[in-house]
């Protein structure tokens, strides 16, 4: 009860000790344990559960699903120059912007200090870029109030990967693939979206060159 009170939640309805009351208490605690305290977004644990569920669904239904990993650019700089309260304001503002730029069915989670993730079920690969771009732009165009009369601009880098359809992959592998793209977005200058290329042409010219590089047709000897 103290836990719920501290989190600003109302006490469950019903007589204390009644089964409705206990059920209400359990529900409230489960809800609390899946939320990030600062932003109210899903926390890492809830995110991992959602990923597993989504992989199950994709393996069964074959519907495409997109995972976006996001990271606030130069967040350390915000903290260092304006203090941790400003940092918290930035995180809360980004959380709101993310929630506002996706569908209600999508799961937005805070998975680390300045790291977020979005799971988008049933998102066709043709729309992936558009969705991720929309999220990026929303954050970039949003001024964050960090004190009286003090506003700063922030941006996020976004990496994304689609779950392989029909195939039972693992949450770790999916996250790794999206993270890979996030690093690419960071390396290429931040405030950018990078999605894993879909597998239309998986072999680049450089790869082909190396493949044939020392390859000597055997009928020449």
């Amino acid at each position: 009860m103290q836990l719920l009170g501290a989190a600003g939640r109302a006490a469950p309805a019903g007589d204390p000790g009644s089964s409705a009351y206990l059920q209400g208490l359990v529900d409230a605690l489960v809800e609390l344990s899946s939320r990030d305290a600062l932003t109210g977004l899903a926390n890492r644990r809830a995110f991992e559960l959602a990923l597993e569920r989504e992989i199950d669904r994709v393996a069964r239904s074959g519907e495409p699903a997109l995972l976006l990993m996001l990271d606030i650019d130069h967040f350390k700089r915000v903290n260092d120059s304006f203090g941790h309260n400003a940092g918290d304001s930035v995180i809360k503002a980004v959380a709101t912007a993310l929630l506002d730029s996706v569908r209600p069915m999508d799961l937005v989670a805070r998975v680390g200090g300045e790291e977020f993730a979005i799971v988008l079920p049933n998102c066709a690969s043709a729309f992936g870029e558009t969705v991720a771009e929309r999220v990026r732009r929303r954050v970039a165009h949003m001024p964050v109030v960090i004190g009286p009369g003090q506003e700063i601009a922030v941006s996020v880098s976004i990496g994304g990967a689609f779950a392989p359809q029909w195939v039972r992959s693992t949450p770790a592998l999916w996250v790794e693939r999206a993270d890979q793209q996030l690093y690419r977005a960071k390396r290429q200058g931040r405030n950018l979206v990078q999605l894993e290329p879909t597998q239309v042409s998986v072999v680049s010219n450089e790869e082909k060159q190396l493949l044939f590089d020392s390859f000597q047709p055997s009928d020449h000897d």
Partner: protein
Amino acid sequence: MSEAPAAVAGADSRPAQSRKILAVTSGKGGVGKTFVSANLAAALARAGRKVLVLDADLGLANLDVVLNLFPKITLHDVFTGKSSLNDAILPAPGGFSVLLAGSGMVEYSRMTAEVRDQFQKVIDEVTPKFDHVLLDTGAGISDVVLYTVSLAGEVLVVATPEPTSLTDAYATIKVLATTQGRRKMGVLVNQTRKPGEGRQVRQQLQNVVDRYVNPQLDSPVRLDLIGEVPVDPAVRDAVLRRQLVLEWLPGTPASLGIVAAAGKLIQN
């Protein structure tokens, strides 16, 4: 699906049974994938193993042509409930068993949830009865191929020493490594023209994987040379007579290559 072992916890918990399942795939068609599947199965059978070859190329199956079989009952009849699975498992000339897709399977060339459930059910039911289940998959990297390969614990990529085949074999390896988390894959080089060419082809593929794929993975992909099968007129002769080269012309270089590859598979 009710009797399928539920994969609840780790999504990658491929059941122990799946280690018996070997997906034979290639990326490119016409490199001898079905020839390799059938003759490997015969060589494994000769070594005393119980082997089933499953025609997993649902759209364009031709294992029946290679084996000179005209099956009355196929996987199609099992899927539509017309006959039992046991009735569809047929003895093949090389001393192994086959489960053929049948031409009616063309309609399954897209993997619907229903087809996948059916397919999974068949795999779950047959695997305990055999020492090896070989999945002769389709060519290319379609969703059907990726799905059927995902059912197997082991993968064998068949390639020939030609640029197009190498490229497609590499693409297959790359996609399986990145989308299925495969870290160990077997390579069989068919139609080699000089001894050691199989080793060279494997090394070449490994070089490109090391340079372009492995740096992006948590643990590196390792390719394992399972064997090389030399160009051999005996193969053409056997194919034209619709016989297994292992049966028709044992002791020829191609047959010996297949037997050696089977030995390597058993060792692993």
